């Protein structure tokens, strides 16, 4: 603890020179390898408060791994992460969740046996306080708490327009809806930073439009910072404030959509035909 406090002292300096919004998360020289494969090689970038940051790059570039590093599922071999004024070697998933980092997954990671409603309710677990005995009785404060959270979740259900599937076990939902439920679960955590791993894969234009609408709305209404991986350049260019480009573990560009679009290295490595 004492160690963390001493780091706190150093933090304000770092924060003050962030201009276009404060930096809420900074990755410094992250290195991550698996056996022979170097998935991430000395990548640094920062995430600023309230922005939509896109991470793009070819398949296998290390984008998902990057998100895994951010929320602590992978521990980088080298580098450090600055978050909320603390600098850590690696994040701890539970710590991340507690301090407002929520995410969705590339290969949907919903709780398949549970209904949509229950899946969203799991997002609120960290906010529920009653102990096991109250829960067993399901009475008084426990019930009240349950109902409060139910209400919050219902708002998200309305927002995402998934009222009709409230009680359906998510395993049976079509792919696109599962993605939406997953977003809902992340939103239920009321995160400060939302990590989205290819939220629009496998969707048609109309559905992507819906998804974009949700993402933008979350970003604007609640000021949630969003880090997003996406392969649809249309989406990336339209909705993101900043883009980080990875190519086989190294960062090759970092800037506004327009800068990135024009970057020759990015075109060669990723875009192919220009968009």
């Amino acid at each position, binding site marked *: 603890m004492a160690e963390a406090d001493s780091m706190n002292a150093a933090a304000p300096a770092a924060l003050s020179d962030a201009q276009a919004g404060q930096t809420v998360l900074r990755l410094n020289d992250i290195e991550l390898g698996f056996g022979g494969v170097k998935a991430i090689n000395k990548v640094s970038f920062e995430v600023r408060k309230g922005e939509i940051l896109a991470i793009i790059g070819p398949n296998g570039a290390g984008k*998902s791994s990057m998100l*895994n590093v951010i929320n602590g*599922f992978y521990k980088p071999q080298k580098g450090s992460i600055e978050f909320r004024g603390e600098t850590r070697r690696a994040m701890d998933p539970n710590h991340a969740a507690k301090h407002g980092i929520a995410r969705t*997954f*590339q*290969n949907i*990671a919903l709780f398949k046996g549970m209904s949509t409603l229950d899946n969203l309710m799991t997002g609120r677990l960290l906010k529920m306080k009653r102990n096991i005995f109250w829960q067993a009785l399901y009475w008084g404060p426990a019930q009240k708490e349950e109902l409060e959270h139910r209400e919050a979740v219902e708002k998200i259900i309305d927002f995402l327009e998934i009222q009709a599937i409230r009680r359906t076990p998510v395993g049976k939902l079509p792919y696109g809806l599962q993605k939406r439920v997953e977003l809902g679960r992340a939103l239920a955590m009321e995160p400060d930073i939302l990590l989205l791993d290819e939220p629009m894969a496998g969707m048609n234009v109309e559905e992507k439009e819906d998804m974009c609408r949700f993402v933008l709305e979350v970003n604007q209404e609640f000021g949630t910072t969003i880090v997003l991986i996406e392969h649809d350049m249309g989406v990336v260019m339209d909705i993101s404030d900043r883009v980080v480009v990875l190519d086989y573990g190294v960062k090759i560009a970092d800037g506004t959509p327009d800068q990135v679009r024009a970057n020759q290295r990015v075109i060669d490595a990723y875009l192919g035909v220009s968009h």
Partner: protein
Amino acid sequence: MFFSWPFFFEVLIGGLLAGVMYSLVALGFVLIFKASGVFNFAQGGMVLFAALTLVGLIELGVPAALAILLAMAAMVVLAYVVEKAVLRPLVNQPPIILFMATIGITFFIDGFGQTLWGSDVHTLDLGIPNTPLFFGDILVNSFDLVAAAVAGILVTVLAIFFQKTRIGRALRAVADDHQAAMSVGIPLRVIWVIVWSVAGLVALVAGIMWGSKLGVQFSLALIALKALPVLILGGFTSIPGAIIGGLMIGAGEKLAEVFIGPFLAGAIEDWFAYMLAMVVLLFRPQGLFGEKIIERV
């Protein structure tokens, strides 16, 4: 009681050889798990069924060699029936469901075997010698040596079958994902019949060895419980693991029983085997030689 090195080695060797007998049973589990991702609880029942069929035939007057062939045929038929009646309708179900189905199979063949051949104990004597041999001061039993040789041959043959044949790869594919295996044209039904037949043959061998030792009776089905720690220690997916796991469990539990047991009032070998396996799992959650459990998001 005093400690002496020759006795220690005697127990060690006895334990290793006893472990080989467990491996014979564990091998059947490994085969089916490796090749279809099914934890086949019925392996013990299959051992009983194979041995009962063999003894039953011999008692009917069929010459031993022919009886063995017929028992093999019976195991293939069993594999066919299992595929048709159980596995086919349950394709693509989660492992626990398939596990449960094999428990159903266990009950069925336990009952069926006894209906056919009765519940009485039968003697199976294929002339495997059971005499104490002495190497210097150390006693080794000839039966155990034969068992070890049989197990060694079996493992070699199976390892080659899995490594060197095209089917081996297909089997592993099936274990990973039934539906995907079907989608690339791997004939699930044929594969399953093959695997279960091979496991049936392994069960027959185990049944012969254990049956010669214990007599053929219902209790044979219970040796599955001795094979389980071997299985987890070696890893569900490794054929050599079954042997090495067997050796370790055998030696470990015998040494524990002899040298630790007296301080704990004895009869500790059963749980000791499981504890040993569990401790290994704490360090390697997939067993010593099992395929790594893939965890990704």
